């Protein structure tokens, strides 16, 4: 049997408005300096004229509580994107790393109490990356040491062979630059 048609929730109509409109609704309660803050009753009267649907007073009050949280996350997102753009100036950082970094900044910034957790998480991420880089360096060093040992053995082997020694010297130069 078909389920009865379910209607969109009143608050969902407001929340699903385009971002520009949500910012307009925000500005009605949080005007720029010198602007006039609208009362809920005035906004309730304005909504049908602007959007073609009505909302109850309690829905509007709930909506503005939601809008405050939404705005904070939006601002945090902007901040995270700016931080990402700044970090992206370093060409050695990959897009995936930048995305992870931006996500951490977003969460740290979006917290009401901006407690340390978000930033601890950011720091942990940096430390994990440093540890990874150190491990990589260790591995490179170990590999180089093995190659050095091999070259020493080779030098002993080709001692007295001038053409082979010339190639050997070139090989050492290349290795130094690596």
């Amino acid at each position, binding site marked *: 049997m078909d389920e009865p048609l379910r209607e969109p*929730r009143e608050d969902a109509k407001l*929340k699903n408005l385009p971002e520009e409109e949500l910012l307009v609704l925000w500005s009605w309660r949080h005007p720029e300096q010198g602007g006039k803050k609208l009362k809920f009753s005035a906004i309730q009267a304005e909504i049908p004229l602007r959007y073609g649907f009505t909302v109850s007073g309690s829905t509007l009050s709930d909506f503005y*509580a939601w809008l405050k949280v939404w705005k904070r996350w939006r601002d945090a997102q902007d901040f995270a994107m700016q931080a990402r753009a700044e970090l992206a100036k370093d060409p050695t950082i990959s897009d995936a790393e930048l995305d992870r970094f931006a996500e951490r900044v977003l969460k740290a910034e979006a917290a009401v109490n901006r407690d340390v957790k978000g930033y601890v998480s950011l720091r942990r*991420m940096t430390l994990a990356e440093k540890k990874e880089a150190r491990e990589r360096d260790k591995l490179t060093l170990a590999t180089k040491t093995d190659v050095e040992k091999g070259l020493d053995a080779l030098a002993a082997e080709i001692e007295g062979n001038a053409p082979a020694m010339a190639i050997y010297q070139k090989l050492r130069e290349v290795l130094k630059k690596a």
Partner: protein
Amino acid sequence: MAGKPTVSVGRVRQKIREALNIRPGSGKTESMLEEMVNELVGGGVSLQEIRDAIKWNHDQVFIRSEYDDEAEVTEWFITGLGIEQENIK
């Protein structure tokens, strides 16, 4: 005897989805949800009520979890079904 919750169980469950539907691509931890839900309802919701509401929404497949290895926390996300539930009466 435990006091009566100031916010109804149904309302807390709905606010969990509402909070997760804000920037739905970003997972939220239990403590973030506690903070957000309390802001949405004007306070009065305990961590236990938040946990119960998370569990209920999870059981209904309105939300899902992912473990973030780096931050060592479980994060919650709203599902497609949860978004649908959030938009209709």
